[in-house]
């Protein structure tokens, strides 16, 4: 086994000059080494004569068409991260507008008057605090994502691209 490994390393040119000389000497003096060397040499020539397999003739066209489709689809799509911030942003804005509208004309007022909802258990300052905090969290989230995107831009701009798309 060690002999085979040495011979193959010699054929591949992976041995040092001293080791290569030792193999050359063994091949020249030992008939078994010579036979093994010749058979590996023949095998190497055989493997080298083989060619890569070829895909179908339409492979390049199909691949380019796929790239074209994916590129177009990606330019239209919004990344999940951005979609999350878009949705939560609109939700936050909508709810804030509802809360800060004059109570008599707001949707809440209508719900309370119809007896569907009772917001008495939450104080107005509590609501302001809740939505103030959520707004701050949302802003910090956006800043955090932007920071990751910018800091990773030099190494791999894929995330940056994803956020921009």
């Amino acid at each position: 086994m060690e002999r085979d490994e040495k011979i193959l390393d010699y054929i591949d040119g992976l041995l040092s000059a001293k080791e290569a000389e030792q193999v050359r000497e063994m091949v020249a003096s030992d008939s078994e080494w010579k036979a093994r060397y010749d058979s590996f040499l023949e095998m190497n020539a055989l493997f080298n004569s083989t060619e890569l397999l070829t895909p179908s003739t339409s492979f390049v066209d199909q691949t380019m068409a796929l790239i074209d489709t994916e590129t177009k689809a990606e330019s239209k799509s919004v990344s999940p991260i951005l979609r999350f911030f878009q949705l939560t942003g609109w939700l936050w804005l909508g709810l804030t507008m509802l809360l800060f509208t004059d109570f008599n004309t707001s949707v809440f007022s209508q719900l309370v008057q119809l007896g569907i909802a009772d917001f008495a258990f939450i104080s107005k300052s509590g609501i302001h605090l809740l939505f103030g905090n959520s707004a701050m969290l949302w802003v910090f989230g956006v800043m955090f994502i932007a920071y990751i995107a910018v800091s990773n831009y030099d190494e791999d701009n894929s995330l940056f691209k994803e956020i921009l798309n």
Partner: protein
Amino acid sequence: MMTEEQLIASVKAGNVHAYRSLVARHQSLVFTMVYRRVNSREDAEEIAQDVFVKAYKYIASFKGDAKFSTWLCAIANNSTSTFLSKRKLVFSELNERHEQQEDHEILSSPEEEQLKLIEKAMLKLPADDAQIISLFYQGEQSLAEIAAILQMETNAVKVKLHRARVKLKTTIEQLTIQK
């Protein structure tokens, strides 16, 4: 004719047409590399296409430290692993099916016969061994490059390649005797 470096720079600058030349140049290598592990032309083409789409998307991250073909092979290796883990393919069953198809092929010239014999022997090897041999001989990747593609130590690749070659040689000899 543009060099590979020029083509890559052109693609990075937004020239999609330059990428066509890169696909044409490396299609056989990627296809062979994938085929060695999945043993199905249809699946290999699908995965190889996916590899080129991924490579196009992330070409900006290719810095040129390694050969472009090595980078493509690394993507191909990962994509094939993902595909296989999803499909949970049983290699032995596929090999048998493929060998049956090969047996019915019409005999041709001695050179073609010899190439067919090697191909048949390759199908009998474990997928990892066949892949490593293809990368070394047909893909012209060095041991260090194969190590990078397969995420292995160079020495481990050397040992694996050595064993794979001996196995392939024995298989070819057995098939020749059977004939």
